[in-house]
C-alpha cells in the first residue's frame, strides 16, 4: 500500500484554483520529486499535506489514515515532518535544542518532573540528548551543538532543518527546496545526505526542488505541476525528457 495517497486534491483561494485534481501516490522508501515552474502550487501542496491549509476538495491518506481536517500538530504526530522553503529554525535556541524540540513528543515526563528535574526527566533527557547528538552526527553538525541556530552558515541551517524534522520520527519527510541558495559543492553534499537519510532511516521522501541536477540525480519518480494541475508524472528520466515539461520550464520553441 502506498504510504501517501492523495485523490483529487484541490484547494481554492477565493476564485483562484491554486491546486486542482492532484493525485499523488508515493510508495514506502521512495524518493519522490515534486517539480514545476514558480507559482505552480508546489508549496501549497506541502501546506495541505501538513495541515497548514485545509484542502477544499479531495482526500489525503497517510498510511491508511485520513488527514483531512487535522491540524499541523496532529499530522506531525501521525508521521509527516517537513522543512521550509524560507528557513524556519528556532533561531535563538542551540542547534542541539532545535533537534530536541523535534523529539518532544517521543519522550514522556510531566511538568512537575521538569520543575525539579527528578523522576523520568533524568533518564529521558539523557536518552533524548544522546539520540539528538547521534542525529546531528549524521548531518555533520555535532561539532556545533551549542551554537545558536541563527549563527550557523546557510548550508548548515538547511541541514539542521532536515535533522530537526527527522527527530520527530516521521514516516514521510517533506523537503521544500532543500538546495535553494546552495553552491554546487553544497548541493552535491546535500544529495549524499538525502540519499543517506533514505537508506539508513528507511525513509520516504517527497521533495520540491528547482535544481534539476539534484532532481535528476536522486529522485526516482516525479510529478510535474503547472498552474496547479498535474502536467506529467512517472519515472524521472522519462518525465524530464517529456516535451510538455520542457515547454513548461523553458517556453515554446518558436
Amino acid at each position, binding site marked *: 500500500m502506498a504510504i501517501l495517497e492523495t485523490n483529487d486534491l484541490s484547494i481554492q483561494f477565493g476564485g483562484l484554483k491554486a491546486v486542482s485534481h492532484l493525485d499523488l501516490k508515493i510508495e514506502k522508501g521512495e524518493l519522490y520529486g515534486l517539480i514545476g515552474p514558480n507559482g505552480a502550487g508546489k508549496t501549497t501542496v506541502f501546506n495541505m499535506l501538513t495541515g497548514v491549509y485545509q484542502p477544499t476538495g479531495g482526500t489525503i491518506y497517510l498510511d491508511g489514515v485520513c488527514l483531512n481536517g487535522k491540524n499541523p500538530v496532529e499530522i*506531525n504526530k501521525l508521521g509527516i515532518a517537513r522543512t*521550509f522553503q524560507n528557513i524556519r529554525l528556532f533561531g535563538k*535556541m542551540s542547534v542541539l535544542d532545535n533537534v530536541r*524540540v523535534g523529539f*518532544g513528543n517521543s519522550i514522556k515526563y510531566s*511538568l512537575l518532573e*521538569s520543575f525539579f528535574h527528578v523522576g523520568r526527566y533524568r533518564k529521558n533527557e539523557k536518552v533524548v540528548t544522546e539520540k539528538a547528538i547521534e542525529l546531528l552526527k549524521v548531518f555533520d553538525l555535532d561539532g556545533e551543538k551549542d551554537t545558536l541556530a541563527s549563527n550557523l552558515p546557510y548550508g548548515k541551517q538547511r541541514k539542521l532543518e532536515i535533522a530537526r524534522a527527522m527527530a520527530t520520527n516521521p514516516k514521510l519527510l517533506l523537503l521544500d527546496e532543500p538546495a535553494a541558495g546552495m553552491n554546487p559543492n553544497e548541493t552535491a553534499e546535500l544529495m549524499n545526505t538525502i540519499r543517506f537519510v533514505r537508506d539508513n532511516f528507511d525513509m520516504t521522501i517527497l521533495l520540491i526542488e528547482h535544481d534539476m541536477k539534484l532532481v535528476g540525480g536522486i529522485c526516482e519518480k516525479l510529478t510535474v505541476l503547472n498552474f496547479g494541475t498535474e502536467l506529467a508524472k512517472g519515472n524521472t528520466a522519462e518525465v524530464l525528457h517529456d516535451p510538455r515539461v520542457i515547454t513548461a520550464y523553458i517556453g515554446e520553441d518558436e
Partner: protein
Amino acid sequence: MKKFTLSKPAKDRYITYGMLAVIALVVQLYITYGDASRSFKGLLVPTCVYILAAIALNLVVGISGELSLGQAGFMCIGAYVGSTFSVMTEELIASSALRFPLALLLGGMVAAVFGFLIGIPVLRLRGDYLAIVTLAFGEIIKSVFNNIYLSTDKNGLFFSIGVESKANHEFDAATQVDYIKGAMGISGTPRDSTFLICMVVIFIAMFVMLNFIDSKQGRAVMASRDNRIAAEAMGVNVTRAKMTAFVMSAFFAGVAGVLYSHNLNTLQASTFNYNLSIQILVFVVLGGMTKMRSVMIATIILYVLPEALRGFNLSNYRMLIYAIALIAMMLINNSAAIKRVREFLRAKFARNKNVGGEV
C-alpha cells in the same frame, strides 16, 4: 578517562545559584553583624519582590515572547489573598513558619488561576492581544480590590464590592472585624517577610524556572517563540506551551505580591498600578530578556540605584541619573562594540578550557 561533565545550561544554572547564595550570605552577614542603615534594611524585601516579579515576567516576555503588561495585577491578587489569609488565620495558626508558606502558596495559586482564565481566550490568538488584555486586566484588578469590603461578625462572613451595600448592612458591632476596607486596604498583616525568606523563595523560583527552561516543555515554549509555524510542524502544541509559561509567571508574580504585602503595615490596591507593571517590564527588557540572571542583576541595579541616590546630596538629580542609567544599559546591551568584547572573551575562555582539557 572518565570525566564529570555538565551540559552548558546546567553549568549556567549553577553559576546563577552560586550568585544567589553569595548575595544572600553577604547581605545577611552585613545586616546581622555590620552596621546596616535603616534605609538599607528597608530596601531589602522590596528589592527581592521586584526580582521575583521580574524573573517571573521574563518567563512571558523573554522565554515565551509575548508582551504582558499586567504583572502588577497578579501581584495585587497575590498580595490581597495572602494578606487576608494571614490576618484571618493569625490566631488559628500561631506559627509563622507554617502560616507564611501557606499564604505564599495560596496567593500564588489564586494568581495562577486568574492567569489561566485570561490565557484561555488570549493565548489562542496571534499578535499583541496579550498586551492589551493584560493591561486592562491590571487596571480592572486594581479597581476591583479598591472597592472590596470583607468583614466578619457573629452572624458570619460579609463580602461586598462597593461601599453602599456595606453601609446598608447591619453589623453586630461587638463582634465586627473588618479585614478588607475598600480603598483603605488591609492593615495588620503580620510582617513575616524577611530578607532570608525572600531569598529562599527567589532561589526556589529560580530553580523551578531554570529547570523548566531546560526541559521538553520549556523548549516547546522557546520554539513557539522563535517560530510558531515551525513549532507546530514539529508537533509542538503552541497554545499549551504559552499557557504553561504564562500561568507559571502569574503564580510567581502572586507569590511576589504575598512577600510584598507581608512587609507592610497597610496594603492598598492603588500600589499595584500601571507604573509598577511598566517598571517591572523595564527591568526585564534592560536585563536583556533572555537570561534570568541578567534580569535579576538589572533589577538590582535599576531598583537600588534611585533609592540609594536619595541618601546623597544628589537626591534632586536622582531621576535624571536613573534615566541616564537606563539609556546607558540600553546602549550597552545593543552596542556592537560590547558584543565584540563579549565574543572575544567567550572565545578566549573557550580556548583556555580546551587547552586545559588536553593536558
